[in-house]
């Protein structure tokens, strides 16, 4: 199955589809891909969730310099740069929702408010400590989000519409998880790059199409004969703060050089698929269930205090997927993530005892030569 081709074609068509949907009165909800903005509520309001997560290009970084200092997380600066550039994807939403957990991400919505005062926005600051007080605050914000969505869409979120939306999103997560689990095998039937393409597509493509396509992909992967799948080594894990759409250079380089990215963990701009939302209860209970899944069950963001749950989760994934080497891929000036790296590096060195490579990116193509050398050397040390 040509995953890259299909996804490429659908994402190209998506902007036009959404413009047409808007003309027909459907509202688009753009959001920062922090993994704390539940698409379930957007779908339940009859709106279209649209993750804004383009990255990997230096041009918006340059444009962001007009409004923010340079030493801000590269991914966030890219988002701001696209707003400054009036990129059509970033101009599309009727409402922009930013559920952030660190300063850089809050700047994205600040810049929507500053540069596009007519855009409807909703801010949610995600608490930084996983406890009852944090959960209570987050659930209150989910109620505020529900109200805002109802106001902008003119549609009431009902128990039925919310439960149906949860089922759709649960199914999407289940499918991503099932595909991810196949990567535990010695013969990995899907490349890391293909998996990330699928993962990122779930932010932007129509849910019905996406779930259907993920089912097809899963069936296809299951049918693959072992002898048709090569064993690529070393098995590499890629981790970091955010992996924007099109920021695939590490995946491409590792896999072009014969390695295999078998698992990845990014707090932002990577759809988390490990836990589902409980579908029992009335609307209030379902919103609580959403809070429980997104704030408590899901592994915490790198900006949480502490972020040890995430570090331990990464180490467990590395064990489960028999990872031989870990690449920490970090956006330049992402200081929160740098703290996370410092602690993870110690845990990996002392507990997991596998090599770890730290890479920075500013999405500048001039980085490529250095990345090639460093990744090539790293893979050699693993072989």
């Amino acid at each position, binding site marked *: 199955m040509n995953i890259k081709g299909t996804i490429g074609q659908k994402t190209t068509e998506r902007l036009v589809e959404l413009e047409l949907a808007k003309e027909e009165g459907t509202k688009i909800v753009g959001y920062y891909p922090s993994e704390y903005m539940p698409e379930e509520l957007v779908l339940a309001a009859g709106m279209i969730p649209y993750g804004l997560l383009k990255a990997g290009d230096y041009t918006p970084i340059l444009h962001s310099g*007009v*409004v*923010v*200092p340079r*030493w*801000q997380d590269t991914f966030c600066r890219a988002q701001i740069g696209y707003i400054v550039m009036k990129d059509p994807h970033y101009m599309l939403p009727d409402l922009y929702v930013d559920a952030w957990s*660190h*300063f*850089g991400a*809050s*700047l994205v*919505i*600040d810049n929507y*408010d*500053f540069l596009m005062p007519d855009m409807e*926005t909703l*801010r*949610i*600051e*995600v*608490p*930084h*400590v996983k*406890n009852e*007080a*944090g959960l209570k*605050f987050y659930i*209150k*914000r989910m109620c505020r989000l529900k109200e805002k969505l109802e106001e902008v869409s003119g549609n009431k979120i009902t128990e039925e519409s919310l439960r149906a939306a949860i089922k759709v999103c649960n199914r999407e997560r289940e499918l991503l998880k099932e595909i991810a689990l196949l990567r535990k095998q010695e013969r990995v039937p899907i490349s890391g790059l293909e998996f990330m393409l699928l993962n990122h597509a779930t932010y932007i493509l129509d849910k019905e199409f996406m779930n259907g396509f993920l089912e097809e992909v899963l069936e296809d992967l299951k049918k693959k004969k072992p002898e048709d799948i090569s064993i690529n080594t070393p098995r590499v894990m890629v981790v970091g703060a955010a992996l924007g759409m099109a920021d695939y250079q590490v995946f491409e380089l590792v896999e072009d050089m014969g390695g295999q990215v078998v698992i990845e963990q990014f707090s932002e701009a990577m759809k988390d698929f490990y836990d589902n939302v409980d579908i029992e209860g009335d609307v209030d209970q379902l919103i609580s269930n959403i809070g429980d899944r997104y704030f408590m069950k899901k592994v915490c963001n790198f*900006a949480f*205090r*502490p*972020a*040890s749950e995430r570090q331990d989760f990464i180490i467990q994934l590395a064990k489960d997927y028999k990872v031989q080497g870990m690449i920490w891929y970090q956006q*330049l*000036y*992402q*200081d*929160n993530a*740098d*703290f996370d790296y*410092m*602690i993870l*590096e*110690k845990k990996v060195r002392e507990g997991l005892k596998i090599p770890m490579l730290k890479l*920075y990116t500013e999405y500048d193509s001039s980085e490529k030569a250095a990345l090639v050398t460093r990744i090539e050397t790293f893979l050699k040390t693993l072989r």
Partner: protein
Amino acid sequence: MDVTEFLRAVRYTEEEIENEKYRVSEAFDKCKIIDEEDLKKAQANLSRYLTTEGARRAFAIAVMRFTDMMMAKDEGKKLIYLIHEEFPQIGLTFYNAMGRDKLVIEIPETYLWLLFGQMCFDRMVDILEAAEKYGMEIGVAHCPIDQLAYGGVAGDIIPKPDVATSGGVFCDQGPKTAEIIGELCDVPYFVTTDACRDESWGSFPELDIDCIRFLGESTEKHFNEIGDHLGVEVTEKHFRKARVEIAMLWGPLQETLQLTADGDPRPISCMDEEPFLQMTVYPDWRTKELTKAFRTLIKEIKERTAKGEGVVPKGALRTTFFCDPRPDIAEMCEKELGLNILLPGIYWVAPFEKTRMIGKEENEYVRFAEAYIRRGIVRCHWDHVYRAIECTNHFKLDGYMAAYEYGCRPLCFPGRWIKDEIEEKLGIPATYFEESADPRIHTPDQLRTKIETFASVMKIKKAKREKQAA
């Protein structure tokens, strides 16, 4: 190491010198990066940058606190670090609950900033490099304050604490620094205080009741966790007393800021204010000592104003740095460019204009949360902008320099918005640029062209305003 002359330079009394000199000497020996040459250099630097006796005495308090911190463990006390702590009420609350015999609670980066910065030993780079050596890479633009705290502990320049804690209300990085000190240096740490500021853009000074309660509740939980760890019960009474003690310092601070702003020519250097600014935001139990030093400073300001003495020419252009300027930058602005640099930044308390949302029936922590958030410049970019406009009006500035510390995420962002809003709403010129306490980041001359040009703009606009008014 004979510290006598150094202690005289920071205005220890002769009695204090006699009683403390061996202890101070031992404290400096322990940090390993100070020798006799540094002591001499410090005396020269203090003379270069400070113009008042009050400021020197404030440095004496900094040395006393540094000594207590360095000697705490040898003297059988528990040592607690409040890393990049935004509300030092934690420290005074625990002093109130446990007394001063059993523990020392400090905000280490305050002394590392003051004593090891350019105004005194000028050895800050050693500590910053220690942080870099142990993992805080220079290329990531980490906040120098956090680097000082981590570099101090990881580089064995200051003692490893028994507990590290941080609030993370103003900035994300304090708790993260406490976390790396905890995880990498094997220190118990508590980072429970939490704040979310997600009011809509432009809404400040309206506040969100959920944000207030959340900060109040998490603060109470944080205090209780530390109390449990130390085996002490912390009550609202202890916290209330700490708030009152700290409020007693903010009175003279506001008076100092206002007297300095009113004096023409500016009577003291902005560097004379610096130790007071730092130690009012980050005080310890020596609040009465600090108040006394404030009184000395205020007396000097009044005397100089009465005599018409000043450090810049009469009628000098009035502007501000948002963050505290590095001493050599401040010196360039005052002595070479003749600018009157006012430093209200985060230290100025604007008159409260709104009725409080939280009543007296609520607990102390929630009441505190409202007062804290209402002050502004707390985890919200719009409130920076709002306070910058107020500050420009209140201090009758000729221009606003939103100069932010290199690596300081919460203070750097609003620069562009501050510029646009002040210029549009007040017709006063504004600019924004980065500066740094880290002398490796830039030299004064690298900022000179920006500041000189801005001074010219201020002069032209001021002349136009005066002409229009006439």
